[in-house]
């Protein structure tokens, strides 16, 4: 059902050139998420299966309310499923304790939100440092790594700006730097360009492209086909189930399609 991403000829070269030999990084089997609203039950996910290998770039699409965010939150260990099995990097997530989940959120996953979720009172640099604080990194190393992450998103010159002094695209880049700063294996982005105009969206997509080329595993939720077209694989969700899972033969390369 899931095509091997490595078979895609257009996949950028990466340090992990043969992921198909390994077990999947994300292995989801028959995952259910049910919300109870008084007497009625809302099944946000009803038996989702999904495998993602190390180094893949996956877009998740689907109509509003189909369960995309729910799935992303589960993958990001921000939420727990009602039923089903989620194995992340060889570990059964439902068996892990709260502190271990916090450690995974901190070290193994970078999450980018549609609404950025930056701390308003902190500077860009301080926002990026935040995960490193919970990783227990000492101040000098923290600063150095946060600056490095800001350089990666090309915002080092705005390090001392507060979110209110940044444009939407810049804010999202700060948020991406924050997601990257602990060098997680997986980058999850839930409609990262949902609040941005098309030109700014392209900035973000160029960034993801670069991160993918560096070997990061990327999952992006989006409504927009031209955004999804940047990925190497598109997974469509409908009513809490995977409806389609297709390889992108000729992904758009944001860096080469300047308007």
């Amino acid at each position, binding site marked *: 059902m899931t095509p091997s991403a490595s078979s895609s000829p257009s996949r950028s070269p990466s340090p992990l050139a043969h992921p198909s030999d390994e077990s999947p990084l994300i292995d989801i089997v028959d995952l259910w998420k049910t919300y109870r609203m008084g007497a009625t039950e809302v099944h946000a996910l009803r038996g989702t299966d999904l495998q993602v290998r190390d180094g893949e770039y996956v877009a998740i699409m689907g109509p509003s309310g189909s369960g995309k965010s729910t799935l992303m939150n589960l993958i990001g260990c921000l939420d727990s499923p009602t039923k089903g099995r989620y194995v992340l990097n060889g570990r059964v997530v439902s068996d892990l304790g*709260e*502190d271990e989940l*916090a*450690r995974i959120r*901190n070290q193994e996953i970078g*999450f980018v939100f549609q609404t950025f979720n930056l701390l308003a009172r902190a500077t860009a640099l301080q926002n990026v440092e935040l995960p490193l604080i919970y*990783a227990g990194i000492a101040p000098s190393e923290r600063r150095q790594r946060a600056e490095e992450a800001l350089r990666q998103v090309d915002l080092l010159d705005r390090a001392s700006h507060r979110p209110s002094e940044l444009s939407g695209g810049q804010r999202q880049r700060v948020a991406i730097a924050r997601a990257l700063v602990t060098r997680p294996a997986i980058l999850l982005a839930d409609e990262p360009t949902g609040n941005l105009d098309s030109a700014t969206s392209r900035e973000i997509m160029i960034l993801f492209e670069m991160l993918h080329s560096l070997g990061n595993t990327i999952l992006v939720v989006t409504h927009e086909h031209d955004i999804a077209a940047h990925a190497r694989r598109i997974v469509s969700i409908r009513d809490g189930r995977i409806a389609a899972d297709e390889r992108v033969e000729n992904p758009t390369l944001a860096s080469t399609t300047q308007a």
Partner: protein
Amino acid sequence: MKSLLRRFVLVRENVSLAVGTLVDNRFRSFLTILGVFIGVIIVVGVASVLNGFRQSVVDQVEEFGTNNIYVYRFPFVQTGRLPREIRMRRPLKHEDAVAIGELCPSVQTVSVGLQIDFGVTAKYRGEEMQGPHFRGVPPDDERVSHSTIKEGRWFTESESQHRADVCVIAHNVTEALFPNESPVDKSIEVSGHRFRVIGCTEKLKEGPFGQDNQEDSVIRVPYDTFRKYYPNMDDHFIVLEARSGQLDRAVEEVTQLLRRRRGVRWDEDNDFEVGTANSLIESFDKIVFATLAVMFVLSTVAFIVGGVGVMNIMLVSVTERTKEIGLRKSIGARKADIVQQFLTEAVLLTGTGGVLGLVLGELLMNGLALIAPTLPVATPMWGRAFAFVGSVTVGVVFGMWPAMKAARLDPIEALRYE
């Protein structure tokens, strides 16, 4: 090692976060810590006054001699009305004192006296003094009372035997009757009887509120002279000096002797009081502790009122920052980290209140010392420690629930909070 470093990094982060929040919300924070602030001032104030008061009592009691034993039929420190069986106690007799002198080997010197406390008037020419204590004592009282003759001399054994009309006056009496001249060899009138002043004593330490020492208002005459004018008085008090290092044994000997002489049954309590400097301080300490208990209750009430305020403001703080908590959790904050973050904030809040209270309390006490120099105020270390530990504890206790509430937030729901 790694987790220790992590703890350290987080403590730093949480302290600087808490300081930021405190500074950003200066006014709100100040109102919140008012209760703790007042609690601390109560503690510092009461502890200071009480401590100074006690110290001056100790000084005063010890001036009378740490080796002295006081014997009287009633308790020395009285709180409230005495029960009937105590009020009915028989007085001590002069013979009791004589027997102590003869039969108690650990007692070195015996003084036994009678005294009129009220309604005495002393006069010399135009000068007059109301309410001195008029006391008849043996010559040995000089030694036992630790009085120092300033001018003149003490009365002798032979003056006592011959019931001579001589007296030794204490400092206040000298001041009142002889403002401009030497009292020695002057003739004064005490309640209608004439006495020749043969000596006067040095001023003693002032009492805890700067009031004169009662012992500075005493007119002493020889015991037998006193009996000559007041043959019916029989309410003796006995003051003994124990041999050096034998105070406890002397107390025991005197107690046993008096029990026998007064016919106290083996299973009954003493029907008289035997006190030493230490036991006087101890009975005074009972009053000190009673006052401390009241202070404790008052400050606890203030601390609780303050604590409820802190809890309220912390709940507001947690609600205001729900989204921030959600974000922190989603990027790797553990439950314990969030608890620590909000506990740090609460403790910083109450700790600041505590420190401000300590500073203002100290200023108030210094001001009090300026206004009333005789009032002995000395803030004891335990008072400061109690006040500070109390305010920090309030932060921990009342910050715990809001902090737990914050830590238990679901990251997704918290992030979605508007």
